[in-house]
């Protein structure tokens, strides 16, 4: 039963990792951009949530109403102001610019909030749990998982059933022809980054309610999101959920064997999948 418990808890943890991964996967799909600062943006969202809850006395989940639009606007501005200038055939500029951005965000957070670990107070939600057939499931992890499923379903629907999604797919397939068809690709990229950071905002706030955080943890969150994307298969939005769950289960099962092995077990699962299925488990059929 302990093992079943580890697997179930790992699955729920995977929901959070899928949220880390979804934003990363979205912008890679639309503009082939890998955002090295993604993890630091998750942490930034957590700090924005913290400030909002403290200053306005709001519940962290209500703070989403402020943090999500704020991060989305920042994403649009970042894309139009900086990142659009880096896009092209050369992969070096976007990589190095987002890397510089990552260092700037990390140190700005350090300057503003110090290195002390912080945590958001979500009241009874943090400890509430329900019993289910001998297992005790936290309400917060369940909620996180449900939110992840809902957001991924929403992204899938946006991609395939809306005008915005059509624009995303068009610029992804061929930027020049999309431009000729009257789409402003710079604007479309801005919207993609806005959507990506909106998802990141949700991920950051849920992270900040679940565990304590400090400015240095961004790199680790980027790696978890990245691993979930590769395990699930590039270009497959539902794949990121599967990838997140596999990573989460590997970590909780690893922690069960030896607490020091939690993170390492996740990395090893990723490397094994990279060795046997380099395109991930569910690559997009083309």
């Amino acid at each position, binding site marked *: 039963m302990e093992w079943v418990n580890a697997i179930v808890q790992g699955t729920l943890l995977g929901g959070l990792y899928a949220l880390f991964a979804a934003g990363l996967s979205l912008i890679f799909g639309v503009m082939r*951009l*890998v955002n*090295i600062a993604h993890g630091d943006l998750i942490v930034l969202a957590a700090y924005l949530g913290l400030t909002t809850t403290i200053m306005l006395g709001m519940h962290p989940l209500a703070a989403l109403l402020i943090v999500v639009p704020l991060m989305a606007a920042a994403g649009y501005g970042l894309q139009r102001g*900086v990142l659009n*200038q*880096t896009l092209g055939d050369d*992969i*070096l*500029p*976007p*990589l*190095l*610019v987002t*890397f*510089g*951005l*990552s*260092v*700037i965000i990390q*140190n*700005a957070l*350090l*300057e503003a909030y110090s290195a002390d670990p912080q945590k958001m107070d979500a009241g009874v939600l943090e400890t509430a749990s329900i019993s289910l057939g001998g297992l005790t499931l936290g309400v917060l992890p369940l909620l996180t998982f449900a939110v992840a499923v809902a957001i991924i379903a929403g992204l899938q629907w946006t991609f395939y059933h809306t005008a915005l999604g059509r624009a995303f797919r068009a610029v992804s397939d061929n930027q020049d022809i999309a431009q000729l068809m009257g789409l402003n690709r710079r604007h479309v990229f801005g919207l993609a980054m806005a959507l990506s950071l909106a998802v990141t905002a949700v991920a950051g706030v849920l992270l900040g309610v679940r565990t304590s955080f400090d400015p240095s943890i961004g*790199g*680790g969150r*980027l*790696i978890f999101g*990245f*691993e979930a994307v*590769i395990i699930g298969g*590039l270009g497959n939005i539902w794949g990121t959920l599967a990838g997140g769950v596999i990573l989460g289960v590997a970590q909780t099962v690893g922690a069960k064997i030896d607490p*020091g*092995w939690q*993170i*390492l077990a996740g*990395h*090893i699962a*990723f*490397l094994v999948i*990279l*060795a046997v299925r*380099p395109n991930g488990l569910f690559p997009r059929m083309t």
Partner: protein
Amino acid sequence: MNATQSHVTRTTSTARAAMLFGAIATAILIAAPWWAGRADMRLMSELFLYMALASLWNLMAGYAGLVSVGQQAYVGFGGYMLFALTIFGGLHPMAAIALTPVLGALVSVPVAILIFRLRGAYFAIGTWVIAEVFRLVFAQVLALGGGSGSSLPVGIVRSLADSRSGREALSYWLALGAALLVIAVIYLFLRSRKGLALTAIRDNELAAGSLGIDIWRTKFVVYVVVSALTAMIGALIFLQKLRISPDAAFSVNDWTAFVIFIVVIGGIGTIEGPIIGTLVFFLLRETLADLGTIYLMVLGLVAIIVMLKAPKGLWGLVRERFGLELFPLGYRVEPATGKKED
């Protein structure tokens, strides 16, 4: 003027002057233990080791197109191997340092086979995962101090040289020698046949492939050589520090972020770039380091602006303006004017 009268040359008068200047500067630097203070020598050692790391990273990213954010894996690995070989293997520190590149190369082969499956930016994050795996594994090795790390025993440090000034001079010369070795290896490599293939891949991978260059193999060789030498530099870094811990050994900020900033600011894809970048980096650090986190933000901002406005870096600006090349890599045709005969 017909073709038979002109001749092909690899060197220029600027390059010859630079070579002479370099030789004089090297001679002065070798004599540093007799004219520099203890603190200056430590600073210069650190500078040389960063110069070596930056030159190596530049060979991978600027020439082979392998943008890694995980070279701290080999810096830390080299450092830990120095400790393990001297403490448990009973080797003399010099022998251990000579052995680290071999071990680094051996480890980098399976790593390369695995992460070369990832393309472009995903390769970059893949290298970071590898570095994290190294960090977490070494944190589990209790014999080397686990998560809190360990110090190099006094007996081993003493075996380098009897007096403190002797040890400091030796450690300085090792750092200087390592930087010169790395730059010389890169220069000779780029002038060789393999280097020509590498330059072709940098300029156009598709065209290089269609000319019969084995792209995967060329990149693989670069990755293994760079990793081996990075491990050796790692051993020298921790010989200076005398103390190692997983967080310091595998720090992404210290061994990758700074190195990337150095190369980008100096000029990526040139031999001169990392050298100039290192000098600028240390100049900035010595003047702004008191600002702490602000300094790092400024550094990140400068790197972003350079990448957007002058992607070839400081050296790129100089080269475009004056057409200089201090390390002659290319071939140039000199028309024979008739007046001058060699």
